[in-house]
Each structure stands twice: as C-alpha cells, then as structure tokens.
C-alpha cells in the first residue's frame, strides 16, 4: 500500500512534468479558497475518489499516533507543486500555504475496510481550517459534516474484543479543540520528533516536498515497541501525542496547569506528579493526585484514561473506547516510579 502511494505519486509528478501550479487532480484554487464544499471529491485529493489512492502527495506515519477508537489512519500530505515544507529549528514542520493534511479513519472489519471518515486540515491564507467529511454509504464520495455525527460501528480491537460504539466524528469546532494553539488551528501530529515520511519514498520525492528532509529525525520512540525505548520515554511519547495537544500552556487545557509535552520536565508538578485536581470535578475519581508515584490505582490520570464517561473521560473528545494498551503502558510507567518522590 505504502509503496503504491509513493510510486503513484512519483509517477504522477513525472507525468505533470514538474510544472509549477496545481497538482494533478487537486483543485488547488478550491483548496486555497475559503470554500467548504459539501462533497470531498471537489478537492480532487484522491484518484478516482478512492480514499486509498491519493492523487498526489506523500504518505506519512507517526511514532505515536493519537488514539481514536482503534481506527486505522491513513495519512498523506498534499503540498502544492513548487512549494516545500520546512522543518524549523524547534522541530515543528512549517507547511506552505495550500497544504492539505489528509487523514482517513476506518477499521479493517467495518465497511470492508473502507474509511468511515476523512478529515482535512487545510492551510489557507486565513490560517489552518479543519473540515470533517463522512463517507457516503456507497463509498463513492464523502459529505461534509460540520456539525459532527455519531456513526454506529462494531469492530474488533487487536486483543480480539468486540466493540459496538457510536463513533464520534468530531464537528469543526471539536477539531479545533485539539488542534488549537493560542486559539489558532495548528497540525498536531506532524512534528519532526514524531513524523515518519513514507519509508518507500525516494530521496528525490522527499526533496520534492521538504526543503530539509534530513531534519525529519523522529526522536520519540515507537510508543508500543518495548525495544524502541524505556517505559518512561514511551509513556512520555504517548502523553505528548495523546494529551499535550490540549495540555500545554497555549492549548485547550492551559488552565489545568497540567503540561504533558515531550519537552516538559517529567519531574515537575506540572507534569502531574503529586498534582492535585484543579477543575477535574468527578474526574478526580476521589483521588488526590493526577499521578501518585508508584500507585497507578490512585492516579486519576489513569482513572480518566480508562473511563469512557463524559465528564470523566480524557481526552474529552474523540474517544468512545478505552485504549487498553496505552493505559497499560502508563500504568507500568507510574508503577515503576519510586514512591518516595512524593
């Protein structure tokens, strides 16, 4: 699949002769307008409007992805021909205007593996815009769902358990709740520390899209690979991606004082260790600390992660199932902390 992605993209770019302007198929004028077309096909982001076949662009994965009810996510980025993304000194990736980050969500055992929804994050003159599209029943196109929707699905998680949930496609505002930095929309996942460009992509293709592809050095370990890093570093990678998009001083949870970025001091009270609840309400579960070192059973960070009840569950949006494997990693991390530190 990945190989097809890259090969196809390369072929298409060759075919277009590298001419400046819009990518083959992509309606770049529409991308860069203020329009919110009711049908996804209008953008021309997919070949034959098949969600598995990008019209152009380059695929990517993340060392630690945001958990979204065990969905498989297929990601690619469409960057206008002649423009390039650049990795900044602090590891953020600066995508040029006209970039579209495309992320399709689905399960292998739902809709015969076709995605349920595709979310676009479009870099326009007015800033980044988030648009959620839900695939129609016939799978031929997807329809804008600004107000979000609950889609009933039944799927199996990797441990074999069957889940029947009302999967929440976020509304436009909820997209922003997670993708917010100082009130402006920004991408979450694509940071150099987490970002892996399609491994099948040639150096030439990488250089076509990135001014400095060599700067894409993911320092975070693969969160679910014990060989990739210690429990602590993998837990911190998990927290960075699953929590820190809100839990940072400029994010939606800034007022909580709980900051969980990869770059935050993991020994500090603002990382949750010995931190009392601020506005947690019943999210505290009757516990005194977000993280009680050595005692995951009395750490309400775990309690909130293992709940699916609104008002308790964290993250507040985008999750209707418990991520057992993620919670297990964080439990182990807290259990291994020396108790004496608080």
């Amino acid at each position, binding site marked *: 699949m990945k190989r097809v992605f890259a090969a196809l993209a390369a072929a298409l770019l060759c075919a277009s002769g590298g001419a400046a302007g819009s990518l083959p198929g992509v309606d770049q004028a529409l991308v860069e307008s203020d*329009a*919110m077309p009711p049908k996804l096909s209008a953008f021309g982001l997919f070949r034959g409007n098949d969600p598995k076949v990008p019209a152009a662009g380059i695929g990517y994965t993340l060392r630690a992805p945001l958990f979204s009810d065990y969905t498989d996510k297929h990601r690619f980025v469409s960057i206008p021909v002649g423009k390039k993304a650049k990795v900044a000194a602090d590891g953020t990736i600066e995508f040029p205007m006209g970039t579209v980050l495309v992320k399709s969500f689905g399960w292998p055992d739902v809709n015969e593996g076709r995605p349920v929804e595709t979310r676009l994050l479009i870099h326009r003159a007015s800033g980044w815009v988030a648009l959620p599209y839900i695939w129609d029943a016939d799978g031929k196109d997807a329809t*804008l769902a600004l*107000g979000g929707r609950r889609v009933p699905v039944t799927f199996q998680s990797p441990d074999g358990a069957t889940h029947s949930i009302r999967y929440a496609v976020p509304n*436009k505002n909820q997209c922003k709740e997670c993708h917010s930095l100082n009130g402006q929309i920004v991408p979450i996942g694509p940071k150099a520390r987490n970002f892996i460009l399609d491994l099948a992509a040639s150096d030439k293709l990488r250089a076509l899209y990135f001014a400095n592809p060599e700067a894409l050095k993911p320092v975070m370990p693969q969160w679910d690979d014990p060989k990739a890093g210690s429990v602590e570093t993998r837990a911190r990678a998990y927290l960075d991606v699953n929590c820190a998009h809100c839990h940072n001083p400029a994010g939606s949870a800034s007022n909580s004082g709980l900051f969980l970025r990869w770059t935050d001091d993991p020994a500090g009270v603002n990382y949750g260790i010995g931190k009392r609840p601020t*506005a947690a309400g019943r999210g505290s579960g009757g516990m*005194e600390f977000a993280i009680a070192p050595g005692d995951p059973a009395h750490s309400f960070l775990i309690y909130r992660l293992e709940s699916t009840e609104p008002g308790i569950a964290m993250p507040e949006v985008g999750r209707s199932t418990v991520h057992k494997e993620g919670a297990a990693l964080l439990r182990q991390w807290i259990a291994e902390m020396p108790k004496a530190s608080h």
Partner: protein
Amino acid sequence: MRFHGLSHHAATLCIVAALAAQPAAAKVISVSATTPDANEKLQEALILAQPGDTVQLGAGTWTLTDGLSLDVANVTLRGAGAGEGGSILDFAGQQGAGEGLLVTSDDVLLTEFAVLNTKGDGIKSKGADRIVYHKLRVEWTAGPKATNGAYGIYPVESTDVLIDSVYVRGASDAGIYVGQSKNIVVRDSVATENVAGIEIENSYDADVHDNVATKNTGGILVFDLPSLPMQGGHNVRVFENVVNDNSTPNFAPKGNIVASVPTGTGVLVMANRNVEIFDNVFDNNGTANVMIVGYRYEHKDPKYQPLPRAIVVRGNQHGKAGYAPKFPGGDQIAAAMGGSIPPILWDGAGDAIVLDKVGVLSLNLPDVKTPQGEAKPAPADLSKGTPPAALPAIKLPESMEAKVK
C-alpha cells in the same frame, strides 16, 4: 465564506437575512428543538453563524447527545426562556464532551435558556473575553449528587466576564465558577444546592454582589491555588449578597479542593489578597458566616503565596452561625464555648481586619505548615488595624452592559 450545502438545511435553519454579503448583515438563525438531528443542526448553526448573528433556540426540550460549542466572535445564543416552556437543553443522554456548551470566542451573549443534567460542566467559556451570561439556568435536576458535573457556569482565562441573573443548582463543585480571569461581575444570581455556590478562583478584580447563595455547602468562595498558570488572586469585593442556610453536606468528589469546605460555610477566603466582604446578610451558616484561611496543603510552587492578606470584613448583618462547625475539632471547640463558635473564623494565617461587631475565633495557626490538630482556638480582636484603601467598583465595557439592558 461560502457554504454550498445550505439548501440541504433549509427545512431546519431559517435564515432571516441575506447570507451572501460579506461582512454579512446580522441575521437570526432559528433552530427548532423538534427537528430530527436537532443536535447536529444546532451545532451546524453555531458553526455557520457569522459575527453579529443570533442563533435563536426554539422553545421546548432539546434532547442532546453531544456537547455544543461556539467559536465565532460576537454571536448571541438566545432561547425562549430559562424556565418551564422555555428552551431547555437536556443533556441527560450525553455521550461525549466535557461540558454541555463550550464557548471559545469573544463578545458572546448567552441568554434565556436552560442547560440540564450535563455529564461534565454545564456551560464553559475559555479565553472568551467580554462574555455575558444572562438569564440562564444550569441545573442538575435530581439535586446534590456526587455524580453531577463539576461546574455549572464556568468562564476561565477570560478578561471581562459578566454573569447576571442566572440560576444554578446541583453542581458537585461550584455552581458559578470564575477561574483565572480578570475584571469580573457576578450579580443578581441564585446559587443553591451546589458544593460551592459561587467561586472566584485565581482571578483578579471581581465584584460579587446582590446574589443569593443558599443551601450550598459553602456559599461564596474566594480561592487561590498553586501550580496554575494564573495565580495571586486579588481585589475581590463580595457585597450585598444574601448568604444563608448553607447546610448541604459536602458532596464533592474527594481530592478536589472544595471537598475540604466544611458544611455550613458562608463566605470562605483562601489565600487571596485585598478581599472586601461587606454589607452582606448572613444567617444560618452552621460552621461560620465568614471564614478566612491559608492554603494548608503541601505544594511545590515557589511562586505561590498561601496566605490570606488584607482581608476586610465590615458592615455585614450576622444571623445565627457557628452552631454546627464541621471542621475537624469544631464540635469540641463549640462545646467548650457554650455550644457555638463565633460567626467569623480565622485560621490565624495572614492578616485580616474585621469591623463587624461580632466575635472572631482564631485557630492560631499562623504557619500554614502547622497541622490543624495543633490549633489553639481563642477569640481574637481584628478590629484594630487600618484597613487598606477601598477597592474601586468593577467597570465592564459598555458593550457588555448594553446587552443586558
């Protein structure tokens, strides 16, 4: 901004003015409670509204499964009333989101509707400057329960906040909670059967007046907590409120700071400076009408100031108080003092001036690190010092006051 799918919604969204003009003339977007997919249609209306628009909620009960949010500046969300027959947003079947309604844009007016039985907070606004909450009801209709949401009305990280004529009941933390904000007025509102009726936390410049705080665990709280982005709470005036019968047993989930509020507390000041409590009517607060304390928990925040300082208590009317003090050791102290303790309780930390002609009990614990078990309760006279200059009244931008005239 163009939107191609409009005809699709014509049945439910009645657009009463031209849409195409940019900037558009202010329009009213009406949404009906009985439309199929009312939740989605209302959310779409809140997304498609342009600055200046009003989203009009139809009368009736809205059965909502997901939290609503508004991120467009200068929008009014208006219902047909907060009482019976009005616009009732019922979240009893809520499946997601941390609150019923979240506002993240400036210059928003919320008025004339009710938000019931949310799983988390009722209405939250974050980074929403000049927000006006007016004639709203936020209620957990089964009354006090630990499973109720934390905050009823919850503005945070905002400058210029007006909460006027709201009714909040049943919050398992604070009914009206203003956190990490500046320039705040809470007035003419009723908070009942919450753990904390009204709470001003880690905030600067607030007037809390002409409210009724009754049957809560604690009536009105002025707090400052450590390890938060904004701290050093100061300049808060609590005046002309009725604070009575705050007798509801504390039902906050343990761990939260308000879980430590003793049942029967009128006004509680913790670790703030320049707080004035005057011209209030207190009655039937079993622990104390006014309590002034330091933050006595362990913390690791070198910048945090745990002491209450320059607290002034004057001109209040004191009814019955102190007859059932619910802090550790309170019963014994009351017994030793002939059945009740004085209406004003101070832990002995920081400094306060009390000009009311009633008794003050000090626990004589000036160091917040001293355990409360080492209290040496004794009457104190706090009438001697010179009060700091009176705080000025809070003035909100005219645009805000105009919205509630």
